[in-house]
């Protein structure tokens, strides 16, 4: 068997220099102190779970459709997972990079004999975090949804068009700072990222590198 080197996973979003490898992924080593940042979080583990019966998911994952919540699934590094009620009968579990096996096993344990489909979509989705007080203003350029506190409080999950692209959308504030996770089909990841970056120019948005665990 020829030596083809250790496989390094790549996001669909071109890495801002310098490129470094973290958790088996090529990521940007750039660090930004800007008040509004864009981070390519594609390396996060992304596992979709579907069930014919919505109540099964609502019960065992304890997160209703339209909401997202952090949970402690006993990962050895102590990082939490983010369970997203992304659709009726559909949840997405986000975890630190490389945790696919753990998440899939845990889901199997939680769902037992129920008819569920657990599919690892880590490589199938692009994931971007937008963080900073101007996030909602930036998104107002690309998204028609009312992102005000009353309509989209922290923990809101919804699916909508961002820059004309079907995008799953989670309001996921970090340490009291406004933040959104946006994910779309991998093939359009660069497009989504570029659209957000373009819209963020007048707001001073900068690219910030991914730092594991990143969730």
């Amino acid at each position, binding site marked *: *068997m020829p030596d083809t080197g250790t496989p390094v*996973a790549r996001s669909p979003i071109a890495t801002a220099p310098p490129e470094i490898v973290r958790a088996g992924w090529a990521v940007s080593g750039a660090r930004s102190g800007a008040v509004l940042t864009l981070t390519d979080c594609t390396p996060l583990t992304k596992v979709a779970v579907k069930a014919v019966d919505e*109540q099964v998911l609502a*019960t065992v994952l*304890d997160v*209703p459709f*339209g909401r997202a919540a952090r949970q402690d699934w006993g990962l050895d590094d102590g990082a939490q997972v983010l369970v997203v009620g992304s659709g009726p009968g559909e949840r997405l579990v986000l975890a630190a990079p490389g945790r696919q096996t753990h998440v899939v096993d845990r889901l199997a344990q939680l769902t037992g004999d129920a008819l569920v489909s657990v599919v690892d979509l880590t*490589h*199938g989705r692009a994931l971007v975090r937008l963080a900073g007080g101007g996030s909602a203003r930036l998104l107002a350029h690309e998204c028609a949804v009312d992102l005000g506190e009353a309509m989209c409080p922290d923990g809101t999950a919804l699916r909508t068009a961002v820059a004309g692209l079907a995008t799953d959308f989670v309001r996921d504030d970090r340490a009291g700072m406004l933040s959104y996770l946006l994910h779309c089909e991998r093939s359009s990841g660069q497009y989504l990222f570029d659209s957000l970056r373009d819209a963020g120019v007048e707001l001073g948005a900068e690219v910030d590198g991914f730092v594991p665990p990143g969730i």
Partner: protein
Amino acid sequence: MRRTPTSPVRRPGRPTGTVPAMTMRLNPQAGEAIDRDDTFTFDWNGRSYPAYGGDTIASALTACGERIFSRSFKYHRPRGLLTASHLDPGCIVQVDDEPNVRGGHRHARAGSRVRSQDTWPSLRFDVKAANGLVGRFLPAGFYYKTFIHPQPLWPAYERVLQRFAHGGVLSAHTPAEAERPRYDKRFAHPDVLVAGGGPAGMAAAVAAARAGAQVLLVEEEHALGGHLRWGGSADLTALADLRDQVAVTPGIEVLTDSVVLGRYEGNWLSVLERGRPDVHERLVKARAKSLVVAAGLIERPYVFAGNDVPGVLLSTAARRLVNLYAVKPGHRAVVFTANAAGDAAAADLERVGVEVVHVEDARHGGDLVRVLGRRGVRAVEVAGGATYSCDLVVTAVGWTAPASLLTMAGDVPTYDARAARFRPDTARLPDDVLATGVVVGDGDLEHLLAHADATGREAARRAAVVAWAWRTALPHRAAEAPPGTEAATRSEAATGTSAATGTGAATGAEQAPDADPVDVPDLPVDAHPELFRAGTHGIVDFSEDVTSQDLLTAVDEGYRGVELVKRYTTATMGPTQGKLEIVNTVAIVAQALGQSIQETGTTTWRPPYAPVTLGALAGRSREPVRHSPMQLWHERHGAVPLVAGAWIRPEHYGDPAGEARTVRQRVGIIDVTPIGKLDLRGPDVAKLLELVYVNRWSKLDVGRVRYGVMCADDGVVLDDGVTARLGDDHYLMSTTSSGAAAVWEWVESWLQTEHPDWRVLVTPVTTAYASINVAGPRSRELLSRLVEGVDLGPDDFGYMHVRTARVAGVDGCVLWRIGFTGELSYEVHVPAGYGLHVWEALLDTGADLGVRPFGVEAQRVLRLEKGHSIVGQDTDGLTRAFSAGLDGLVKLDKDDFVGRPELTWQHEHGDGYRLVGLRPLDGSVVPAEGSQLVEDGQRICGRVTSSRRSPTLGYSICLAQVAAHLASPGCRVSVRLPDGHTVAAVVTEHLAHVDPEGVRLRA
């Protein structure tokens, strides 16, 4: 570029000369909007002019004594300022490459080139002014009457008429990306949107914000304040106070130089934001819970002979020039006034040294007769016969309520003869639309501010009710968790909804707002003389050169309604869109018809309220594109991009024929990531497959792959692809690249609507995998160097089988042994993040085997040689399965499948075209795809669906849809080429031109 006003300016390639002095510029005025420390020059018709920061193009030129800025639409009469605002029809100019710029509003910009539009050879000497000499022969309707006959000459007429059309010049030059004006779009969700930033608008915004509303305050001018900006000291004091309140009150976003274009159902409001430093124009799509219209009033021109001669100004224009821009509009003035605005204008003019030689007071029977002069006012004749020498005539004869937004919300303005204007009927407005300020009624500033304050509070109250209703209508999150569970309790607390009721109604966590409605006081209405037209005829529509005589002529000719007169004469159809001329038009038509203005009614206000560029409507260019994980590699290696739907794919790498030969002779790899992929799980997947495919699926073994074709209910081919069985209840379905989304919806539709009892879960995984087809006689040899855990030999891994394996160190890869190209080939599906790694490993490892990438074009050639059809190319929207060469695949003896009844009918009747292989007898001719097949020299009997020159065979080959009676092997058909020539072709034995027995792909 900054220069002092009197400095000589020299620019390469431009006329040189002394910059004119600002001879009409006044000493600093209390409320002036210019920055005298910011001086610069710009070009006007090739000559440099000075300006101050904050000057409009019109104010800067007027300050230098210029009075003519344009020529009129039809007669090319000299035109000067009328309103000195955005509405001014006399100062529409070209700025650099941008036509139709409102010079009365647009700020002058250092270095910009401003030109008059549609004047030749110059603004001063415009030969088209000859139109005015024959004006009596150009009455209303001239255009329609003259150019309708003879119809064949219309193209010639059109070319001539185009030369007379106003509208500036669009440059054919496409500026570089960095030089292009930037257009943008954004969304806003204010609780209250206030349209109009005058005193009432500001007061309403402050009141609404203080009541807790998020407010978007939109003002068309460059600054808040409305008429207070050009008022006296008391007005300026009030203005400063209101501006302070707006500034310090949280929750108010102010957009100046912006205008609300339209109001649509559900209070969707389009707002055009202009002149930001980073964005030329931005369309704001706002959904407001309440709309407050505080649009103020527009001063109305007076119709009399010579009313368009440069030097005839509205009173508000004179006051704006004096007080905002410190510009003296003339030297000797006559003021015709019917109201306080005219009185104030006369006072302002006298204060700044303009000699007011006469005030003609309409309130005491005064009137104007005519202005004398052509290129500028020389004198004016007033009622009673007196004539006054002057260079400035100021009129103040009344107002028009810009009720556009209100009428878009359902209002029908009614004419109030006492006030001499149409006024909105606010009782007709929906709950989410309110109005305040002088658009509603009159009164002093105290009255207006009290009304606005109450209106703002009421708007906030109504917005709160709407917000509550919207929040409680959100998806019922709590209901997702069983009532009584911890999740349900938490969600109920968060959303104020009840899982138990399932209604989404609020349950106590958030009560419906119950504040009492605000009592909004009435506004008084001041009496005002009805003044529309003097005893002489003059211009009614300054944009379209429509005279009062034109309106009377139209009525005489039988156009007995204002809408008909409008269309016949084009009155109110120019750039001002009726804002200046609608009331005068209606009044003159009413007089001609012998009926009241109320009986005559108005024309209809429709969006947009103000002109909007196509750039603003388009916003940023946002067209989603899709790339495979190997896209950057393709770009770096010279791939010619192919736009395939949203996907960007490599069409070829410079030599598609060579790429095809490599696959036939050695080995090639192609990026086929766009192939649609659906992960299917559950015990009833086989039932689903049996339903949506025309062939059988119940006996597909684990580890096997099968080709399938889907048809719609009408038997028309919908999609095709292979599906692999990865486990007992686990399948991976592939679709065409373009059909991935449609097939997903198709499958979900059947599951959710017809068979919700089937236990099948579908997850699209198209881009979870990077897909690479390794094809060619040496593909097995290449792949075996990188694959671990699978024996690739034909016995263990035969044709139409599937395996999972580790490839180039990457776990979780799926290998299908299939062959679209007709060669021994493997489709490798790699977790997408590792796609580039595996792609490069294949090329590195197979270098000694001669591996090279091939693009979509080579793939098309190869599959055509093999006779594999492409859904959508070799089929169309009418092609049923038996017309697509699928006779052996369709299993009519199955109990059921989608399209079975139609296909049974087609099978029994044998009608429709047939897909056949076709070979032109002259192998050097490649008929264009889409070429018609004809018989008897005339009748169409089919078409070429695919055609290429085969690199393997050395001659041209085709697939074609042909009438059934000509589909037998050996039948000769004629192919009509696009150039009209005809070539003969013969139907081949098989669809496949190469390896019809399939020896190569089964190797």
